[in-house]
């Protein structure tokens, strides 16, 4: 936030650092309010949040980082914390100070990270959270002594009750005006000397490194094996550096693991501080969390609750979101039609662009919001509650077999409804490789957009039979389609985890936080962030793709096709006009013929008609008639009058069929014209579609899709479905000259069944239907999913890999399905 009124001295930045589940995000919101910016970094799947707050005349930027247990960085994600502390992140201001958020109920573990952070020597304040939780367990923290031990001020903060936030601000303001002092822990002398020596080596390399190294980084380099920092330093220092590093490690280690030396020194010092600054008055009994867990992680009850909760999550995305999605689609359909109606009649392209490209595209983005919001509503509640860790605890055994973790379960389950919330939901997975694997697997789960394809193909090609006496064959095929994705995902997961995403080990090590009541403000914030982030970041890509597809279906617009169909329409209208004129003439002559005049039935009918007119008039102005206010009598009279008139008309028609038939012809001609024009419209749309770039692409790829049992029309529909798979139904409807259809449409099913090859044999068979379904089950035909993957992994690499891998797999799967089914006589 740049403001002309403030000079540099009045603007500061602080970074919030702490373990996960300590209330850091709540504190961030309490400090900065609703206005925040999200910063992403290349190659990193985590993000930092930026907000601002004021204290007196100072504008304070606050940086919130993902929670972490340690500054040891083995992946780019874990390095974000160190880089943020050192001000090395783009888009994020260099911090002038640190707010260390510590959970009073588990201070020892919190202080492990705390000591690492305080070694950086930035001015620091401790925000002590969860004091009430600690007290309820008989843990009393003496903030004055803790402050003395750490050498920085300690402020108790209770965000839900709004206590301590102002004091924290004023304390930050105070410490920022004094230089910080780096904490020094009593590491063994050899260890300290090795860090100093390595620090010296790093400083000599600083020109090649491109940044000024710090002593804490030297310590990380000494202790941590591998990781991004080591890679960078090795690039600058080469083999010689590795030799030196090995020497320092050998000297510092003293025969023991360096990680153990570090942990011993830190936890030793922490234990000493805690003896002074903490009193545990009551022996630890069974806490509320323990008692709740006895049920929620119980073999029977826990599994039952789990199934119910997961059922609820799935139901919400699959079913509850649907009316909202339909409403959004309906609203945008109406809006598109209305806006297009305002545009000039002859600007067909502009109308189509606005209606189908832009407004349709925006609707296509927003339609996903209900599912995303429902999933994140549950995730936010379950995460706040602490249940996410329990769900992961219950499911880990099963997911671990596929190289995933228990936390992968909810994202993958959600993906059966829609991969978009599923991919976004992977942020609950802490480990980077597990998260990337889960992101990659999400689109394999059969989402609800594949259902129309299955419904259409099954309805058209799978006979309505029962097998084994009670199982419907159609239902069985549908069930099998859901398994196709899962069965393809399992080997994919194993290959990914053993190959590309192999890390030496992926520690599971999950904290089981104590249960807490969810806070509505927290949940509202998560929904706002996730929804906004989807619309802003993924939405633009989806909109762009929707306009591209529109263009590929529109261009090159052939005037010949338009003109030819316009001529057909003219001809139809002219034919209609001629029919009408002839019928009208016949009608006029028939009615005035002598035969009619002589017939008393005509006079009778006319009398009945006048009678009815009178009664109807009486009904209109009822005061002036014999009926007065007698509603029943009036209605009775009207009914009698209508019946009399009808019967005399029928009599008339019986006697003079010939004279009245021209009137019937006129009516029939009206309907004929209407149907004829609609058919021409559909033919024109089909002709334009075939002539469009997409249609031509369909013809071009026909040799490639023939082995799948497809022709150019299915090929084209499949290409058109790459941005959004459900598009296939509408595209097939257009190309088969059926206009707007849905997957239940018998016309479309019939058209598919009746399509003939050049030799007159059926073009599509059961084998074709199965091959199309397998293709759609395995293919990542969803621009929105790819856009969200890009957003969540912060790189195009993953969506690109997913797209190519799944397309290849889909092609091979469909090929195999067709060839096998065809050979078996399908």
């Amino acid at each position, binding site marked *: 936030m740049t403001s002309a009124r403030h000079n540099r001295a009045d603007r500061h930045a602080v970074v919030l650092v702490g373990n996960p589940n300590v209330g850091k995000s709540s504190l961030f919101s309490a400090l900065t309010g609703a206005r925040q910016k999200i910063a992403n970094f290349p190659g990193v799947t985590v993000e930092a949040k930026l907000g601002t707050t004021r204290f007196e005349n100072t504008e304070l930027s606050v940086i919130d980082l993902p929670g972490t*247990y*340690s500054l*040891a960085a*083995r992946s780019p994600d874990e390095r974000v914390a160190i880089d943020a502390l050192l001000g090395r992140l783009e888009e994020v201001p260099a911090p002038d100070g640190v707010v260390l958020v510590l959970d009073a*109920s*588990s*201070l*020892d*573990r919190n202080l*492990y990270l705390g000591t690492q952070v305080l070694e950086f020597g930035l001015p620091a304040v401790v925000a002590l959270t969860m004091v009430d939780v600690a007290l309820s*367990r008989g*843990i009393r923290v003496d903030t004055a002594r803790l402050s003395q031990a750490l050498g920085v001020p300690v402020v108790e903060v209770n965000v839900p009750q709004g206590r301590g936030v102002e004091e924290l601000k004023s304390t930050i303001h105070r410490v920022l005006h004094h230089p910080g002092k780096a904490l020094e822990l009593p590491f063994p002398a050899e260890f300290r000397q090795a860090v100093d020596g390595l620090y010296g080596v790093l400083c000599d390399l600083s020109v090649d490194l491109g940044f000024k190294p710090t002593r804490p980084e030297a310590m990380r380099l000494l*202790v*941590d*094996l*591998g990781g991004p920092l080591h890679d960078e330093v090795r690039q600058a220092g080469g083999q010689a550096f590795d030799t030196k590093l090995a020497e320092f490690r050998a000297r510092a280690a003293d025969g023991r*693991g360096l*990680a*153990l030396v*570090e*942990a*011993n020194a830190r*936890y030793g010092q922490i234990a000493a501080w805690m003896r002074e600054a903490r009193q545990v008055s009551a022996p*630890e009994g069974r806490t509320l*969390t*323990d008692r709740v*867990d*006895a049920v929620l*992680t*119980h*073999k029977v009850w*826990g*599994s039952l609750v789990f199934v119910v909760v997961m059922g609820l999550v799935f139901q919400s995305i699959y079913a509850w979101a649907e009316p909202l999605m339909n409403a959004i689609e309906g609203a945008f359909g109406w809006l598109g039609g209305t806006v297009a109606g305002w545009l000039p009649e002859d600007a067909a392209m502009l109308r189509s662009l606005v209606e189908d490209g832009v407004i349709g595209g925006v609707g296509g983005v927003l339609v996903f919001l209900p599912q995303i919001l429902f999933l994140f509503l549950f995730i936010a509640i379950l995460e706040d509650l602490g249940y996410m*860790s329990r769900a992961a*605890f*219950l499911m*880990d*055994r*099963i997911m*671990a077999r596929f190289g995933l973790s*228990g936390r992968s379960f909810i994202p993958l389950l959600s993906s059966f409804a829609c991969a978009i919330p599923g991919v976004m939901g992977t942020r609950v997975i802490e480990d980077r490789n597990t998260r990337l694997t889960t992101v990659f697997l999400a689109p394999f789960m059969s989402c609800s957009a594949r259902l129309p394809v299955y419904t259409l193909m099954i309805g058209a090609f799978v006979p309505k039979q029962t097998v084994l006496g009670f199982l419907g064959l159609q239902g069985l095929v549908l069930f099998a389609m859901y398994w196709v994705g899962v069965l393809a995902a399992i080997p994919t997961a194993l290959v990914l985890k053993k190959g590309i995403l192999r*890390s*030496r*080990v992926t*520690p*599971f*090590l*999950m*904290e*089981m*936080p*104590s249960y807490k009541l969810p806070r509505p403000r927290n949940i509202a914030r998560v929904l706002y962030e996730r929804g906004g982030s989807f619309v802003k970041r993924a939405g633009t890509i989806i909109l762009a793709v929707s306009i591209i597809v529109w263009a590929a279906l529109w261009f090159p617009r052939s005037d010949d096709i338009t003109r030819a169909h316009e001529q057909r329409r003219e001809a139809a209208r002219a034919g209609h006009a001629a029919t009408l004129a002839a019928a009208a003439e016949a009608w006029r002559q028939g009615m005035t013929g002598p035969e009619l005049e002589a017939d008393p039935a005509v006079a009778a009918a006319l009398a009945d008609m006048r009678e009815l007119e009178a009664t109807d008039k009486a009904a209109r102005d009822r005061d002036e008639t014999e009926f007065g206010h007698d509603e029943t009598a009036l209605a009775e009279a009207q009914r009698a009058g209508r019946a009399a008139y009808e019967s005399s008309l029928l009599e008339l028609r019986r006697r003079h069929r010939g004279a009245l038939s021209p009137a019937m012809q006129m009516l029939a001609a009206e309907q004929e014209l209407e149907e004829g024009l609609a058919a021409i419209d559909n033919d024109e749309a089909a002709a334009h579609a075939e002539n469009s770039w997409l249609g031509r692409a369909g013809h071009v790829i026909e040799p490639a899709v023939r082995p799948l049992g497809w022709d150019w029309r299915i090929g084209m529909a499949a290409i058109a479905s790459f941005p959004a798979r459900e598009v296939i139904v509408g595209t097939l409807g257009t190309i088969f000259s059926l206009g707007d259809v849905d997957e239940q449409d018998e016309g479309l099913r019939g058209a598919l069944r009746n399509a003939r090859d050049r030799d007159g044999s059926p073009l599509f068979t059961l084998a074709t239907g199965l091959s199309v379904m397998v293709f759609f089950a395995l293919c990542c035909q969803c621009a929105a999913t790819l856009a969200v993957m890009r957003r969540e992994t912060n790189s195009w690499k993953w969506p690109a890999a997913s797209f190519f891998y799944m397309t290849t797999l889909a092609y091979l799967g469909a090929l195999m399905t067709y060839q096998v089914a065809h050979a078996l006589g399908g």
Partner: protein
Amino acid sequence: MAATLAQLKPGQSARVTDVRGDPVLQQRILEMGILPGTDIRLVRVAPLGDPMEFAVLGYNISLRKSEAECVCVETA
């Protein structure tokens, strides 16, 4: 063979004597406060037999069985 965390019975406490295994895993376990000299208690085992939940330093942590096997303990 020394006892490991994986062999504890639910409710049973022990004192950590050593952390072994892959260096990265070792470091993670140590960072979480599970280091020689620390008291640790097995709270419960997941219904499918894995992972296991432990209480250490005033908080609860779950480890996979394979991870628990890396932590050597002595029982009182």
